[in-house]
Every structure is written in C-alpha cells, then in structure tokens.
C-alpha cells in the first residue's frame, strides 16, 4: 500500500525476486508525499553530481541520497540526470520526476487512485483482506508504505484552531506579520527560513533546546540549510527562539495571543502574533491497523516493528518507507538510523524483499562463496565503500557466514539487531558506526559458538579502512574462526 519511494523500491525489489504482488495507492501518480511537500520546494537530502565515482557504480549511492536503487547499473543514479545544477538539493518537482522516471523505466505497476478503506484478517487461512475503493484484495502478507505525513497537533488548548505546516499560505501573505511557529525541528525552521524576508517578527518555541545536525553529526537536529533563523536569533536580528511550553493559543481580534511558560524558571510570557503555525510533526496514517492489534508508540504513532519491519504485535503486517523508522535497531549512542529518509529506507526495502522472498515464498537466494584469503579485504572494502553501511550506520550490516565445513558465504545485507540477537552459525557482521563526536569507524561483530563479541576499530581521517593496519586488525579478530582447527594429534 503506497507509491512513495518506499512502496516503489519494495515493488521493484520484489519483482526482481519474482514475487507476485499488487501495489495500491491513494495517489494519482508515483511520488508519495513528495508530490506535495516540502512546502518550500527543496529537499533536505542531497545528490552530488561530481564525486570521482562513476554514477553507474554502486559506490555512487553514498553521494546520491535521492535515487531509488536498482540491481543493475542501467537504472542507477536517475536523479543527477534530472537536476538542473542550481543546487545539490533537488527541488520537489525534480524529486517527483525522479520517482516517476524510476517507476516508468523499471516497469513498476501501480493501481493508482485506489483508496484503502479497511483491513481484516481471515480467521481460516490467516490471509489479510484489504477493502478498497476498487474492491477487495487478499494476500498472506501486506506491506504498508503509507508515510508519516498526517498532520499532528499536540493537545495544547486552542492549537487545533491554527494552520499546520502543510497549510502554509504563499509567503507574500505573511508580509510584515508577526508569526509564531510552534515547534523547533526542521519543519519549523524551514518555514522560518522561507519567511525571513517577509515576516516582521518570527518566534519559534518548544520545550527543549534546538539541536543542530552539524553539532550532532547525524541527521538529528535542524539541518544546515535551515540554520539561518538560528543565526538571526543569535545575532539579535529579530528572530526569537524560546525554550518554553505552550500553555494556550487564544484568538485575539484578527490575531492570536500565545501563552508560553519557561520550563526552567516557570516564568510566563504571553506573545502576540498575527499568525500561528503548528510545525508540530506528523503521524503515521495507519487507518484501522491499531484496531487489528498493531501497537504504536511515540509522538508520530509509529507502528512497533521487529528488525525485519514486521509489526511487533500482528505477524504478517509489514512496513516500508519512512514508517520503518519505527524499527529502532540498536540506536547506539542514541543515534537513530536513517530509516526516516529515502537514503536509508531504500535499503530497508531491498532487505525486506529478500526476507519476504525467503521466509514467506520459498525462494532461496544464492549466496556468493568467498575464499578465506579474500574475506578480510572484502569486508574492509564494504566498510569503505558499501552504500548500505554508509547510509544505515549501526543498523544494516554486511554478514558473512564462516563455516569451516560448508565454506565462507556472503549472506548479504541484514539488520544488525537481527544478527546480534538471533543466534546461528559462526559468522561476522560488519557495520559502520558513529558516536556523534568523531568520524565514523568500523564495528565488527563476531559470532562464535552462538556468542557475539563486539570489536571496534579506530576511525581513519580519510574514512578509508582498506589499509594494512585494518587488514591486520580484522585478520586478528577473524583468526579464531577462519584459521583451520588444529588437527588431532
């Protein structure tokens, strides 16, 4: 269900594995929320046109956060060819065009304008039945890639009367207005950035302090593109940033009075505004799934998920797209995965397609065999250039089984949490990790006799882990499993 990037990627990957499926979408064409948002028309994810890496190479995906990922080179890197070169952040129409081009060139078939109305599970054979505006669809597995784009208003008295992020008017209509923005995350700062040349006063308020991505060194926090209002406030240019709770929004003549309270000293500060905008986030539009038993959590009401993006409470219901941020993984150092963004969840979709093919449809995907002598170099090359590891740090891992009798096999990309927690034969998983401070560094998880040990390698200033130092260190870690067992004397 859904024809945004998540639904399109999953459909592509399922088709490549020969899995019969139907894609239904409420929308009239591909693109999901990028058919409407962001409001100010440019993405937060970049596509670098010139990198020194061939665009047709898999390694290029590290620099191209916006293209969907094909298995063959012919359909790779669609986005840079569609962008006009004025910015390395594609415009919203360019993003939409890129998704449409991928769907068309790879032959993805979607039943558009098909509204999902309700869901039930057949007691007899456990199939799910989706009732839609085009009739009933029945399947043993259903995947919801419906985005997290339903506006959310927190329970603040009077706030439900004000416009939400998506209801912003044209910028000219805010000319010389005092604008109060509830929320200090990217959507709030995006609006503030757009209104800087128009509004007389901009106030951004929420209880906790603003984080900046350049400080967290992750996607957590306000992205650099939207930092200008922050600088304006720091240099006292007229933007006001408040760490306060919002107690009430009250209409006052043609405008509003917003009652704020400082969380630290409890001091109340009323603010007069001509416009109030709720940049207070979005929730997942899950329809009747919670009534079916799908547990949700957090402000975005994300469905709780297993490491393979299956509902933690209703087996058979899976998720794809930005909603997969509900499968938190290890969240090491508090850093979330990039599953909320295209560059992260496109890989989740490919891993999910393989998982569904093998676990539900009896497809056995061949595992390439590796020689013992090349395993160390192969893993270090993946750590240095593998886009899955780059985009989904501490979340997706390259897994290699190390079986003395059956040989060394490349198991592909798997969720790291699944590898660590599931048990299994002797194996190694490598992931790239960040701790929010320095450069990323390789993490090696060696499973031997069912127990997993963690080994962290040092960072490299050029983020290149292929050198002899790394070969020696990884060789020593793998040695107890890779070296032949001593023959009985």
């Amino acid at each position: 269900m859904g024809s945004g990037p998540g639904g399109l990627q999953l459909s592509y990957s399922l088709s490549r594995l020969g899995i019969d499926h139907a894609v239904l979408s409420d929308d009239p064409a591909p693109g999901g929320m990028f058919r409407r948002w962001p409001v100010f028309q440019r993405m937060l994810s970049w596509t670098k046109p010139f990198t020194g890496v061939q665009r047709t190479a898999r390694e290029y995906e590290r620099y191209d956060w916006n293209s969907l990922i094909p298995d063959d080179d012919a359909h790779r890197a669609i986005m840079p060819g569609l962008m006009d070169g004025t910015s390395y952040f594609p415009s919203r129409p360019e993003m939409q065009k890129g998704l449409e081009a991928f769907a068309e060139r790879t032959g993805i078939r979607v039943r558009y304008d098909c509204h999902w109305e309700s869901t039930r599970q057949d007691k007899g054979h456990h199939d799910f039945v989706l009732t839609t505006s085009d009739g009933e669809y029945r399947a043993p597995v259903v995947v919801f890639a419906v985005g997290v784009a339903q506006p959310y208003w927190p329970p603040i008295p009077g706030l439900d009367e004000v416009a939400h992020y998506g209801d912003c008017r044209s910028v000219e209509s805010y000319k010389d207005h005092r604008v109060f923005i509830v929320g200090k995350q990217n959507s709030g700062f995006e609006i503030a950035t757009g209104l800087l040349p128009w509004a007389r006063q901009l106030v951004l308020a929420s209880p906790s302090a603003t984080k900046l991505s350049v400080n967290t060194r992750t996607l957590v926090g306000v992205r650099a593109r939207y930092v200008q209002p922050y600088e304006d406030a720091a240099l006292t240019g007229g933007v006001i940033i408040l760490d306060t709770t919002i107690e009430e929004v009250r209409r006052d003549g043609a405008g509003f009075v917003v009652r704020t309270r400082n969380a630290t000293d409890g001091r109340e500060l009323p603010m007069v505004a001509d416009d109030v905008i709720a940049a207070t986030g979005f929730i997942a539009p899950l329809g009747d799934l919670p009534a079916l038993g799908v547990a949700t959590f957090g402000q975005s009401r994300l469905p709780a998920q297993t490491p393979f993006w299956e509902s933690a409470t209703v087996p058979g219901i899976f998720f794809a797209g930005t909603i997969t941020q509900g499968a938190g993984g290890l969240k090491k150092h508090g850093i979330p995965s990039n599953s909320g963004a295209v560059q992260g969840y496109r890989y989740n979709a490919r891993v999910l397609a393989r998982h569904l093919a093998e676990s539900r449809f009896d497809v056995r995907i061949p595992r390439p065999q590796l020689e013992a002598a090349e395993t160390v170099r192969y893993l270090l090359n993946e750590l240095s250039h593998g886009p899955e590891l780059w985009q989904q740090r501490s979340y997706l891992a390259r897994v290699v089984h190390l079986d003395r009798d059956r040989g060394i096999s490349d198991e592909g990309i798997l969720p790291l949490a699944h590898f660590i927690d599931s048990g299994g034969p002797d194996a190694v998983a490598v992931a790239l990790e960040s701790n929010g401070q320095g450069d990323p560094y390789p993490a090696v998880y060696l499973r031997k006799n069912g127990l997993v040990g963690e080994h962290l390698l040092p960072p490299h200033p050029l983020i290149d882990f292929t050198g002899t130092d790394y070969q020696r260190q990884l060789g020593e870690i793998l040695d107890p499993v890779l070296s032949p067992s001593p023959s009985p004397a």
Partner: protein
Amino acid sequence: MAVRDDVVNTIAAFSLFADLTGPQLEQVAHLFDEAFFGEGERIMRQGVSGSGFYIILEGSAAVRVNGVDRSALKAGDYFGEISCLLGEVPVADIVAATPLRCLLLPASQLEGFLTAHPKVMYRLLQGEARKLKNTTKWLS
C-alpha cells in the same frame, strides 16, 4: 489520548521525577526519545557499547546475566545508568518480558540532564543506594 500528555502523565507518577514541575515534565518528555520493544526483544546487550539510560513507561523487563535472569524491572524503574556513568559496556542483557515502552536518553546527554535537574540526580542517587544495599544484603 494525546501521546505527549500520556507520557507527561505517566512520568509524573514516577519517584525519579517527583520533584519536577509540569513544564519540566513536559521538557523531559520532549528531551527523551520513546522506544518500543516486543516481548523477548533485547533492549540492552551485555558487552555491546553505545547503550543509553532507559526509563520504563509500560511493561516489564528481565535483567539477564550470562543467560540467567537475575531480577525484574517494571514501569517507573530505570536501567543503563551504570554503563552511562562509567562509560563502560553493560554487564547484563535487558530483555522485554512483555511489550515494553521506554523513554531513552543517550549516555552523552545524561550528565547535562542530571546537572540541570539536581533533584532528579538526588533521586537517582537514592535509587543507586537502594541497589547497593540490596546487593550487600544478598552477598552477606
């Protein structure tokens, strides 16, 4: 029920936050992330770095050392503070015994949070003292 309100109301009843005002509780609800774990899922892993400070909102969890359950945790209990404070890997697994909802603060933010909220730090110290007392009693 509105989600944030639900978190604020839940943590208002926890002894760790007993001294905080309404706006401070709301700030906590904003500062901490929320996480959900299915039954049997591991929240913290013995010997694996990078874990954080967790407070249980709903559900229960087992403290498991070398595969053996040593104690149980319930709503209002917290864990992970020792590895956060010492900068060391956890010495136990924490496993969801039921579906589990938690608040999570990364280790790097714990010092800032506690020094900004000395009353919470004092309550946390009381909790640690209680754990130490119980361990001493058990050992003797």
